[in-house]
């Protein structure tokens, strides 16, 4: 469904994305996980025709992004990181504008807008100007907008950044529902739990490179299921074990504060890159 072959993006002084190879299957909910500045947004921008790769090839639904731009555009829906709804227009007008931009016939456009307003639970806000909406509502509106023209693939760049826990769960539910409607979803995130709870497969991205890829469980198996975290003189060390018993045995002989817990993707990231996602 989405294929990246040796995709590289160089800016004047930095290489933001460094020969990334990636294949995302139809119907998958795929996450790019990495710290800020890792190159996730640049990857999404290249996939959504907002930036051109310096080298490499991107194929979306069988179409080459460089040569078959129009076909690609019809296939994809995009929810950017930036809240780019038009604040001067109402919720309905924002959707109507999008439908017109994608040349949807009037009858279909109006029906689809109604349907999606219901989907994001904002039917009663249809005629409010977007300027007065909360961040979570704007984000939901952007999701409805991205879905309006019935794309096959949905791109979400940091879909829950800056939202409170309640709004975040609402967005997660919407993403799951959309994926169940047979949509291929690619999202970027720097939230560990978002990648773990939501995504079928995750690619760890660091400094423009793809570090590791797999299901959250596969990735965690790479380091071991259980972590022993030892905090000694302000320094934290990690040891990984495949079972609880071995971990407990090891921890029994340690000094300082010791925590035994299940490994998460953060641990995988730290082990592979010597860096935290949150940094």
């Amino acid at each position, binding site marked *: 469904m989405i294929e990246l072959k040796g995709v590289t993006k160089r800016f004047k002084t930095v290489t933001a994305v460094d020969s990334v190879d990636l294949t995302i299957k139809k119907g998958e909910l795929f996450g790019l996980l990495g710290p800020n500045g890792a190159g996730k947004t640049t990857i999404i921008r290249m996939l959504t025709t*907002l930036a051109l790769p310096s080298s490499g090839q991107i194929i979306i639904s069988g179409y080459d992004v460089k040569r078959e731009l129009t076909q690609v555009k019809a296939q994809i829906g995009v929810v*950017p990181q*930036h809240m*780019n709804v038009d604040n001067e227009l109402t919720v309905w*007008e924002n959707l109507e*504008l*999008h439908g*017109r931009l994608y040349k949807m016939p009037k009858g279909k456009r109006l029906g689809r807008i109604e349907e999606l307003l219901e989907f994001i639970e904002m039917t009663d806000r249809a005629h409010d100007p977007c300027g007065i909406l909360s961040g979570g509502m704007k984000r939901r509106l952007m999701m409805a907008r991205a879905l309006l023209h019935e794309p096959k693939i949905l791109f979400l760049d940091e879909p829950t950044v800056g939202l409170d826990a309640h709004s975040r769960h609402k967005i997660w539910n919407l993403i799951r529902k959309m994926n169940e409607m047979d949509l291929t979803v690619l999202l970027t995130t720097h939230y560990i739990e978002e990648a773990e709870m939501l995504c079928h497969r995750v690619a760890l991205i660091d400094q423009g490179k793809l570090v590791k890829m797999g299901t959250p469980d596969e990735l965690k198996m790479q380091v071991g299921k259980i972590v022993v975290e030892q905090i000694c003189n302000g320094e934290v060390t990690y040891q990984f074990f495949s079972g609880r018993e071995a971990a407990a045995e090891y921890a029994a002989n340690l000094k300082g504060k010791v925590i035994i817990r299940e490994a998460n993707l953060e641990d995988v990231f730290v082990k592979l890159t010597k860096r935290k996602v949150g940094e």
Partner: protein
Amino acid sequence: MDWYTVFWKQWRIFKKRFWKIFSSSLVNPLLYLIVFGWGLGRNIQVEGGSYMQFVIPGIIAMTTMNTSYNAVANPLNISRIYYKTYEEYIIAPISSFSVVLGEVLAGSGRGMFAGLIVLLLSFLFGVNFQISPLFILIMFVNSFLFASLGVVAAMVIDSHEDMAMFSSFVIVPMAFLSNTFFSLQNVPEAVSYLIQIMPLTHTAKSLRAISLGMPVPWVSILILPVIAVILFIVAVRITLRVE
């Protein structure tokens, strides 16, 4: 008909802001009419007519320029750099030609709206002058030209500060120097050449000739659409470009 989508959006915004736009379109020309027409120019004769008759075509030229340029340049620049609503156009299957045409026609419409308000005010002030379909057409071409310049500026300039600089160094001097408020008869030749380069000079000259029933300066009238088309093409080439 893709351009109409872009135009439609601006039309919705125009309707919402109608009273704000209407009153602000009223204030500037009214001030110019009072200060330059009634105040300073009451007893001055210019090129064989009253100063009021002389200055009104200039004010119309200036107003259509200012309004159409500002209606496009600043909102588009902000939507590109700050709100990023412009990215919706890049991602959508719409051509750069359609986006520019929609924006420029919307901007031209705003320019015409403001220009017609000045015409109306002038009649209320009891100024005696002629208008013809050609007069209206020149107003439109002038609006189209500066709306296109607005798109070019919005695409090329990368900060709000520099947008203000461009306005201070290009738009404002043009507004005051382009044969709008004073006659070029007593201007030194070298300066006159400089003024002739400015497109607005040709608008003011043409509008004035028609309004005073003088022979129409065809060269000026033909220069305007040429510049407008060139700016429009440049705008189309640089809009929706990705790197």
